[in-house]
């Protein structure tokens, strides 16, 4: 797909537009339809599109695995942190009235912060899920099982493929984990 000029150029032109639209939806959730969830999904779709068109290596380079995990946790911490901050300022948990001098301004600030936390978590989760699913195909090739990306026939054509995974049913997870690590370190 990288060789097709139309797809390549359109993806490069559209990616900043998609990210800008996601930020618009995020911060205008107060005034129109929108909010954290929708914005997170739209933001993730820009990165997923890039990974599909330009390959998984470049996609992973833009959104590394450790950064992914940190962002997922950071969103939830931001949400809980807003609640705990309002505890420190004298109100109840997640009571936004005490976050600022004016209650209405406090509500605006609180809603802005938690929606940003939700958007961050949802975007990171969607990108992380996509990469977790897409990185599994190389693992599948090691096990030599038929899949729909080969020819689309059912698994009844290769009955012998059942023997190897079943014999190692008890140590299956350890073998798979070790194989995945070998594949990733061999890259």
């Amino acid at each position: 797909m990288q060789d097709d000029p139309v797809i390549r150029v359109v993806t490069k032109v559209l990616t900043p537009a998609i990210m800008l639209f996601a930020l618009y939806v995020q911060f205008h959730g107060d005034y129109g339809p929108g909010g954290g969830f929708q914005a997170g999904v739209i933001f993730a779709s820009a990165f997923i599109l890039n990974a599909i068109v330009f390959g998984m290596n470049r996609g992973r380079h833009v959104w590394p695995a450790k950064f992914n995990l940190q962002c997922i946790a950071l969103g939830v911490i931001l949400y809980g942190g807003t609640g705990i901050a309002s505890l420190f300022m004298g109100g109840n948990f997640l009571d936004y009235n005490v976050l600022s001098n004016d209650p209405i301004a406090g509500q605006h600030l609180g809603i802005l912060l938690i929606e940003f936390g939700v958007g961050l978590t949802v975007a990171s989760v969607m990108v992380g899920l996509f990469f977790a699913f897409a990185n599994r195909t190389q693992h599948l090739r090691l096990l030599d099982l038929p899949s729909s990306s080969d020819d689309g026939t059912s698994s009844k054509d290769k009955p012998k493929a059942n023997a190897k995974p079943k014999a190692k049913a008890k140590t299956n997870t350890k073998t798979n984990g070790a194989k995945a690590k070998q594949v990733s370190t061999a890259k």
Partner: protein
Amino acid sequence: MEFWINAALAIILTVIGIMAVSQHRLFAVIILSGAYSLVAATWFVVLDAVDVAFTEAAVGAGVSTVLALGTLSMVPGKEKKRPVEALPLSLAIATGMLLLLAVADMPQFGSPDTPVQQHVGPHYITQSEKEIGVPNIVTSVLSSYRGFDTFGETAVIFTAAIAVFLILTGWTRKKIITKPKSKTKSPELDV
């Protein structure tokens, strides 16, 4: 006029649903489920739920289809043909009849004096301007009046992501023996 729009959308949804059940190629089934989510999002707009339509279009027709296609790339693409059995079909029809009995007790669709519109809904609509000051009432209810539920929902998304990473990438705390120079004890990531 609204009745005909609702009826047309309902007929389209039913046809897509029946086609999704009866197809044997899984790729077609997944694309049909994406189309189902999109038409449902259009119906949400007709029913005045614009936030929900936005989320359903983005999540149901977007992310859900991508994940299903990602799964499909790793499993066989055709379903084994089975004959239509009598017991599940009669079970579905019997459950449908029971649900229709329950639906008969529901108030009229669209009337403003149902019990749903009575207790907390009018309070949110009338007091949201004064107490929160945000024009989008759904955002004010979601973030401020029911902010604790949204916190739980974010935790659920977080947990689902961790669960998928544990299942699919073998993410553990084992140190890697092939990398002797690594001094970190952080978990090895395949994500």
